[in-house]
């Protein structure tokens, strides 16, 4: 049959590059890929968490991170000429926490409103 590459070689080309890792809980971590295996367990050097709310973002330094593969959704190669995205505005961490809380409140209100209106089936 056809030759199958040995398991866990898919990320060789990404080694030593700055990557954006999206996790299953929605978090985004940026760091330099130093190691990986066939489960997409990752070692990221100089990791930072990028929190985005609307068009604001902030970065929290994390250090050296090992990510368990099952939590990985995708790895994006960062195009450094387009990073950070010009549409986004960097704010201090304290500010993003406030924005995050406000967004969560909004979501909660939306949810309760929707739940109350549920008997009207025309509402999406």
């Amino acid at each position: 049959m056809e030759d199958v590459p040995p398991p866990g070689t898919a990320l060789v080309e990404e080694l030593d590059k700055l990557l954006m890792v999206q996790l299953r809980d929605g978090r985004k971590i940026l760091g330099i890929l130093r190691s990986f295996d066939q489960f997409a367990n990752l070692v990221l050097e100089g990791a930072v968490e990028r929190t985005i709310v609307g068009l604001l973002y902030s970065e929290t330094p994390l250090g050296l991170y090992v990510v368990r593969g099952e939590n990985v959704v995708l790895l994006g190669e960062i195009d450094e000429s387009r990073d950070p995205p010009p549409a986004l505005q960097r704010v201090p961490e304290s500010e993003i926490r406030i924005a995050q809380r406000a967004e969560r409140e909004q979501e909660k209100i939306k949810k309760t409103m929707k739940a109350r209106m549920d008997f009207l089936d025309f509402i999406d």
Partner: protein
Amino acid sequence: MLFYSYFKTLVGKEVTVELKNDLAITGTLHSVDQYLNVKLNNVKVVNEAKYPHMMSVRNCFIRGSVVRYVQLPPGSVDIEILHDATRREARG
């Protein structure tokens, strides 16, 4: 390995991968492995305004376990061949 073999024939084609978190990404299929992890080049997120973190990403690796659908280019699947291959694989 049928689907792995099949996806290998799609390398270089434009596909849209929809993930279980509803993120949908269009790009050129660069490679696929036996877990159906896929690598896409020149990616474009379908609802870009909603996912601003993807704006600086050109190429990406998607873990096979988070994929819900792969939308294929029209005419990229020859049902006849796939059908035969399925029977052959089932017979072992």
